[in-house]
């Protein structure tokens, strides 16, 4: 394997990792469509879902353009298997209640915001452009989700208890964001500085929400390299069902 080929593959893997995390979170959020706790919030969460889908498409289109095996954005989303998906474990976790959904969104969006902040200065023009376009959406996702975390965390006795449970549920999946996969080392951003900023922001928001930060938690990892929790298979079954059953079907 020559060096150029290796780097090309690693770069495509990195783009797919970015794409997969946004696609899977989009799919998860879309499960709320028609089930939101109140009409206005139903629209808000599905809006975020569509924002993420748009970001995923941009990344997939770019990955497809770089591939030499005729991949398209659709084949990348609909025809890869569980082990080929490189999304973070955090985004495949179930919606749970509204509290768990908004906390998952916040933990991810805060990370994604800091990531895009660096990525928009990437030496790769296309990645930089996608990040610069997406960061405005992400900024709003951070605002929307952090406000919800504060409302519920520092809300009623019940909402506080539910948020405590959500933190306990999701925290073990946050460590993975900052452990670089092999393909991330050459092209990715400086995860150490993102971690520092992420810790600061998240500590502040959870503090305002009266939610103590968990300590000494064993962190799960593996999503970035295709070792997923049991959740992803079910998500893909639903997401890919149509294309697998009627290959090539179009609207």
């Amino acid at each position, binding site marked *: 394997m020559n060096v150029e080929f290796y780097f090309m593959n690693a770069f495509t893997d990195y783009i797919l990792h970015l794409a997969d995390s946004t696609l899977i979170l989009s799919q998860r959020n879309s499960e709320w469509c028609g*089930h939101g*706790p*109140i*009409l*206005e*919030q139903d*629209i*808000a969460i599905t*809006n975020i879902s569509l924002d993420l889908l748009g970001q995923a498409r941009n990344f997939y289109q770019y990955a497809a353009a770089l591939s030499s095996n005729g991949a398209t954005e659709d084949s990348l989303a609909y025809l890869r298997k569980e082990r080929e998906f490189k999304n973070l474990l955090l985004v495949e976790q179930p919606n749970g*209640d*509204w509290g768990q959904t908004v906390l998952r969104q916040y933990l991810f969006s805060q990370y994604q915001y800091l990531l895009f902040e660096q990525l928009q200065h990437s030496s790769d023009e296309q990645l930089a452009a996608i990040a610069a376009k997406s960061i405005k959406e992400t900024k709003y996702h951070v*605002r*929307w989700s952090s*406000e919800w975390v*504060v*409302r519920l965390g*520092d*809300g*009623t006795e019940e909402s506080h208890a539910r948020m405590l449970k959500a933190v306990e549920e999701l925290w073990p999946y946050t460590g993975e964001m900052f452990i670089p996969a092999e393909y991330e080392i050459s092209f990715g951003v400086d995860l150490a500085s993102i971690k520092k900023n992420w810790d600061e922001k998240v500590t502040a928001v959870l503090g305002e929400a009266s939610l103590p930060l968990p300590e000494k938690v064993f962190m799960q990892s593996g999503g970035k390299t295709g070792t997923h929790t049991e959740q992803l298979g079910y998500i893909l079954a639903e997401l890919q069902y149509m294309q697998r059953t009627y290959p090539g079907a179009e609207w």
Partner: protein
Amino acid sequence: MFNTFIRKFYYGDIPEDNAGSSEIKKAQAPPSEGWPLWEIFIRSKQGLDHKHVGSLHAADAAMAIENARDVYTRRQEGISIWVVESKYITASNPEEAGELYEPAADKIYRHPTFYQLPDEVNHM
């Protein structure tokens, strides 16, 4: 899952809840106990006025702005949003339409239609 009871307001109904505040409400009743109704005004373009576009529910002003952003501007309808809690709008009573508006109906001399405009003045 939330067992949501959606309170229905008809246009012009003013909810009684005392929940208007620009501060983020931390302790709040669940939606089922009724978030107040807010009237939404959107400015579609620079230089135009804010126009009433509808109403929605929100726990406080900050959430009302965000809900309005998602409900009323997601297809590029606006560049500025005003929200006001519906209970702060005082509306005229439709039953008083007679004394309020009808007297103006036969006062055609209040319209500037009796001037001879020079031909050079267009679009009046």
